């Protein structure tokens, strides 16, 4: 099979393919799986629901790119509408719009996966070679001093003034990056060493057939083994124009921790303990904004180059589970992250150039779920009391950091809005202020809905990602994580997908 990319929106007629493996989803995990399996000599077909967008397509306009690059046109929320759950759509998935942060999963988390969840081989020393290979392939390097923008320098100033832990981040950009600050809308300058730029071309070179605009509607199986996948080719507006069928002896689910369980549930994949879609973690994040007297123009430059881990402790039973990181947005995103309306909101937006903002992202323990209701995927998630306390901790300490950096006032987008002008105001931020809809929450890291583990009564796949009950079914995305990971997941998604794909290739005799 000669490798190629097929654009479903312009393909004539139906598409029927035969493969050894069908990969369902073209994000970080799916792209890595496709590359590895194709390089092992297997016939690989990858199906991705979204479009194939390249740097010339990225206009840097929020109204054009948000609907294009994100699930449900950027409006996907939990069932109660309280939390915005962002996820990528398109060849490259979330690696098209993500902020390129590269961190390995913490040693404590990996060790817990190995020793408490039976994920043999997840311990740090065993995973190190996979991470190293991913870091090499994606050109991961530490962000340079001259790449730190004013916003991140201000964040670092506040962190360092308090003597808090944290530091410079690493990323997967190369010399094409001009520091435009438009990462979240796709890189017009092709500066991201992401799945689309690095892995998918390698997969195609090795013989994989990659199909965009191809929505997987279900896996075909006979209850004992995988037979293939079925779906639809979509036009530019997402309407069905033709069918796509792939006959395959194995399948990798790589549609994210939201999309993968949805496919599995719609396909009636054997699930004797009803575990698929459960244990959803999302890293719920709250925003704190600081208002300064001097212009910062935080939308310019690399968006995230510093972090604060002072309140992020991975020890068992920790009561500090929040990661602080600069988090600014272009005007639509910034205004949407605030609360209020009318002159109050417009007044806040006038201060836009003098604003800084950070996200307090919780290493969550609450467990949500993904279910399906006809064609609709339903996400349910309610932060429990402990995670609400973490949100309060993150917002309180985030405000403290911004005040230490020189903010004359901090604002917490909540209903009603919280305005903080000094240390004395910080005591008002308690868990009680974080009921559903009380504060704006966003989640960008869904994970855990088809977790790895040794025990089929508590896990969906084995330690490598092989489904416990359906022969030929593997999972190669963040659904695999048995717990929250407590930081940016992309390296871990790539690394565990690499590991799973090699194991699958061995099993198929490649």
């Amino acid at each position: 099979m000669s490798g190629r990319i097929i654009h479903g929106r312009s393909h004539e007629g139906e598409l029927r393919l035969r493969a050894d493996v069908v990969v369902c989803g073209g994000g970080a995990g799916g792209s890595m799986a496709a590359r590895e399996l194709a390089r092992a000599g297997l016939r690989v077909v990858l199906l991705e629901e979204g479009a194939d967008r390249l740097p010339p397509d990225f206009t840097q306009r929020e109204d054009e790119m948000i609907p294009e690059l994100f699930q449900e046109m950027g409006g996907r929320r939990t069932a109660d509408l309280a939390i915005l759950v962002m996820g990528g759509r398109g060849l490259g998935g979330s690696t098209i719009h993500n902020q390129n942060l590269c961190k390995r999963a913490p040693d404590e988390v990996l060790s817990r996966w190995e020793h408490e969840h039976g994920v043999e081989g997840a311990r740090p020393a065993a995973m190190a070679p996979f991470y190293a290979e991913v870091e090499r392939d994606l050109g991961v390097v530490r962000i340079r001093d001259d790449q730190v923008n004013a916003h991140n320098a201000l964040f670092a100033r506040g962190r360092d003034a308090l003597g808090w832990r944290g530091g410079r981040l690493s990323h997967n950009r190369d010399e094409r990056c001009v520091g435009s600050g438009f990462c979240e809308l796709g890189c017009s300058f092709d500066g991201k060493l992401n799945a689309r730029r690095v892995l998918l071309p390698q997969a195609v070179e090795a013989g994989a057939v990659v199909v965009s605009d191809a929505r997987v509607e279900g896996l075909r199986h006979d209850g004992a083994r995988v037979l293939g996948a079925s779906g639809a080719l979509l036009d530019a507006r997402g309407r069905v124009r033709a069918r796509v069928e792939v006959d395959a002896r194995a399948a990798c689910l790589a549609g994210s921790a939201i999309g993968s369980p949805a496919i599995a549930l719609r396909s009636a994949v054997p699930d004797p303990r009803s575990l698929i879609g459960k244990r959803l973690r999302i890293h719920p994040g709250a925003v704190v904004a600081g208002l300064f007297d001097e212009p910062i123009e935080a939308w310019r430059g690399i968006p995230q180059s510093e972090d604060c881990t002072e309140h992020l402790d991975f020890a068992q039973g920790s009561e500090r589970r929040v990661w602080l990181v600069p988090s600014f947005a272009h005007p639509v995103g910034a205004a949407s992250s605030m609360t209020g309306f009318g002159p109050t909101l417009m007044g806040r937006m006038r201060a836009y150039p003098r604003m800084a903002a950070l996200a307090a992202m919780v290493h969550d323990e609450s467990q949500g779920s993904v279910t399906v209701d006809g064609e609709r995927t339903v996400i349910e998630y309610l932060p429990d009391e402990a995670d609400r306390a973490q949100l309060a901790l993150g917002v309180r300490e985030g405000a403290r950091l911004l005040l230490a950096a020189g903010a004359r006032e901090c604002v917490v987008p909540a209903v009603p809005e919280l305005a903080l002008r000094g240390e004395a105001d910080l005591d008002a931020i308690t868990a009680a202020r974080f009921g559903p809809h009380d504060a704006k929450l966003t989640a960008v890291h869904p994970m855990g809905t088809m977790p790895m583990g040794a025990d089929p009564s508590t896990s969906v796949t084995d330690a490598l990602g092989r489904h416990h009950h359906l022969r030929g079914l593997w999972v190669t995305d963040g659904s695999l994580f048995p717990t929250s990971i407590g930081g940016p997941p992309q390296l871990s998604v790539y690394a565990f997908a690499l590991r799973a794909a090699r194991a699958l290739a061995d099993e198929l005799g490649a």
Partner: protein
Amino acid sequence: MSDAPEGGPRDGDSRGGEAQRAARARQAGDRETRGSRWTRRRFLRIGLAGGALLGAGGLCARFMGSGYEVEAARARALVALSVKELVVVEAIIARILRDDGGDLPAPAEVEAGAFIDAFVGRLDERNAGDFRSLLHVVEHLAPLATGSLGRFTRLSGDAQDEVLRGLEESPVGLLRGGFDALRTLGLLAYFRHPSTWAAIGYDGPMVGRPQGGFR
């Protein structure tokens, strides 16, 4: 913090851990936990049922159907919304984006309504239907919560703000969420436009930037 057995897994990979977590949620008598059972489907059924009640009888139908007018050219250009829906959404975003004498352009100047119409046209049927139901709730039902019998579009500006505040602060989570979704769409329709950028000091995309900038 965890109820997991000493030294045991704490993330619910044991049935005991999951049962304990569920029990804590029940025992907390958490209002929000109960509120989350207001599923989207229940919310929409109530919204539509309320509308049906108001629409019963020819008199009410005439009342509901009157007073929604836009220029003929704009009406002809609609791709997804009805004239009534356009009038309602423009009334809502006029309050959300009100600037009271400031230098920001009015929503009409950036054709926010037309943008929203086109956006709704790209939504799948279910999401588009949800959006229409939400407009219906704002126009006919939300004013009732503030003691007003009138349609939203016929209220004074202050009364409209009271309705929107009521939605933003509603004890019903879905109403809060619905308001936030409307608000977000209005902000997308507004701050997408280069004429809004100068007033907020934003220089816009690097790609396609005209000489001299957008400002």
